[in-house]
């Protein structure tokens, strides 16, 4: 039985890495990976608490999150593909069409 503290700290570290990567990296693909990392960090913490409190809710939510993440990855990657076809780049600083 892994103590809840460890799981919590591990999840927090994982989330922070994802967050930092999201802000530091410049291309969309890597940023996507960072987002996945954050989602999974959250999942991990959900699982940990579900185990600690011996309840099912946390586990159920994890399934939802996985589903949403899968859908998001599918659509997101498709969008990134299309952007690449149009712009020949996936660097975020080149993508500022919405500038006011």
């Amino acid at each position, binding site marked *: 039985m892994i103590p809840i503290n460890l799981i919590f700290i591990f999840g927090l570290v994982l989330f922070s890495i994802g967050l930092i990567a*999201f*802000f530091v990296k410049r291309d969309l693909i890597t*940023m996507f990976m960072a987002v996945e990392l954050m989602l999974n960090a959250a999942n991990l913490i959900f699982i940990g608490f579900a185990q600690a409190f011996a309840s099912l809710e946390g586990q159920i939510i994890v399934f939802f999150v996985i589903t949403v993440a899968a859908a998001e990855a599918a659509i997101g990657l498709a969008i990134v593909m299309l952007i690449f076809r149009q712009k020949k780049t996936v660097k*975020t*600083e080149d*993508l*500022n*069409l919405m*500038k*006011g």
Partner: protein
Amino acid sequence: MANYFWMIPFFPALSVVLFLLFGRLMSKKYVSFQACFSVLLSFVFSLFAFIHLLSLPSSSLPLVKKLFTWILSGNFQANFSLQLDPLSSVMTLVVTGVGFLIHVYSVGYMAEDRSYTRYFTQLNLFTFAMLILVMASNIVLMFVGWEGVGLCSYLLIGFWFEKHSAANAGKKAFIVNRIGDAAFLLGIFLIFSHLGSGEFTVINQALSQHQLALPLATLIAILLFVGATGKSAQIPLYVWLPDAMEGPTPVSALIHAATMVTAGVYMVARLNHLYSFTPSAAQIVAIVGAITAVFAGTIALTQNDIKRVLAYSTISQIGYMFMGCGVGAYAAGMFHLVTHAFFKSLLFLAAGSVMHALSGELNMQKMGGLKKYLPQTYPTFLIGAIAISGIPFFSGFFSKDAILTSAYAQGNYLVWTLGIFGAVLTAFYMFRLIFLTFHGPERMDEEVKKHIHESPPVMTIPLVILAILSIVGGYIGLPAVVGKEANWFFKFLTPVISHHEEVHLSLSTEWLLILASTVVALTGIFIAYVLYLKKPSLPHQMVARFPRAYRLLVNKYYVDEAYNYIFVQPTIKGSELVYQHFDLKVIDGAVNGTATSAGFLGKIISYLHTGLIKDYALAILLGAIILLGYLLL
């Protein structure tokens, strides 16, 4: 049947509705039938109502029929209710009787017109509005009829709207009338704010109990009279009536001679208690009427357009009616209204017949010698001219004499003198018209001359009936010299006319006054005879002798020009200025300003949108942190 008097206005109204719904499907014959028949029905009902009225004791007057509550707001109530009393009975008889004859005449006159149905729709609508005006039992409903006839007048003056001058004349009539109506409305508001009701019975009662202060009552009376000067074409708002002659001639006869333009006189007579209560307002009415009578008469002297002479004559005669009302002889004013309706519509219709014969020619200088070509029109026209000139035994004589005698009896010698002078003018310009048109050398164009023809019976029969009425119409109001109770008309109106101490003249004075007015009428005719038949060169010499006076008269005292200079141009220029500076800058500026300022704000806020995903993500993160901090702390 007399209890159904309230149905009188609704026959023409029903006819209008049918025309509007099914007019396109109707044949010309049916249109003529329906238009005339609806007015005839109204006339028959008016006749029954009149006979019923004769047998009623005066204490049961007026008969009021409330159809429905029209406006109810707080303590303000206005009913859609019609009333019958001698005054409205006389008016309904005139409106439907003369109106019917003119409808019949129109069948012949308008036969060739493309917009035949439109013409009769508007004519029926006019009859309806006029009947509402004269039968309304309160001043608010009266105002509905007042505006209704104004609208129909506008529509019918501009009937041939493709003609520029006709469209402009319609507009002029409408705008000038609105000026008067504004004052009229103010008068109504004042009545309402002080009495809380517009019912004529309430107004009369309030006046008899002195519930209205004299200055206030005077103000109301003057404001209402200003409205009347607009509708009845008196100084200073008479300018629209001569131009109104652009409309079809039967319209001029019905609206601009017999009925609508006399609405102002009817209004003053209807509110006679008010005008008796306010002597200074009544004096203004009398003076304005007298001045208008002379003023318009002098303009008529030099006009060459046959209809315009009649138009100025109408203005002048309505001046007489106001003169009568102003000196307290309301019955005499109404009497002149009735006889005038007969002979002036006769004159207009006969003039229409002349125009019909001459392919629409209006200029009297291009007429002459028509006597032998128009064997039916000529005698009727002559009867009308004699009647209006005030030759004894014709209707105009009795009514004009009644007015002048009352003015004299009231000691209003200024008004009387003006009236006598006006009578000379009347006789002169009418017989100038007769001599130029029917006598003397023929001055028509050859082309026109070939087509001269007498009008069809559908037009001449109304002429004959009106001519008969122009003769016998006066005998309903015989002067006092015939006998004390001889004046049936005055006696009939007694229940609705306020009583004031009547000054009785001695018989010899009365005879003298009659003699005076007869002599002046004959003098006028004689002068016209000398100038236009005996020595036709004399008018030209006179023109050469007094070029200034002549130019002044021909140009109608430059009143139109003066109005144009003083009111019309400044209004147009002022509007232009307001348009340039207020509309374009302030109003458009405000509208555009809201759009610009919204755009400007958007522009500022849009700087937050860098278009970079990182910045948005940062904003989300910061937001999350703030939210978290708020929840934790």
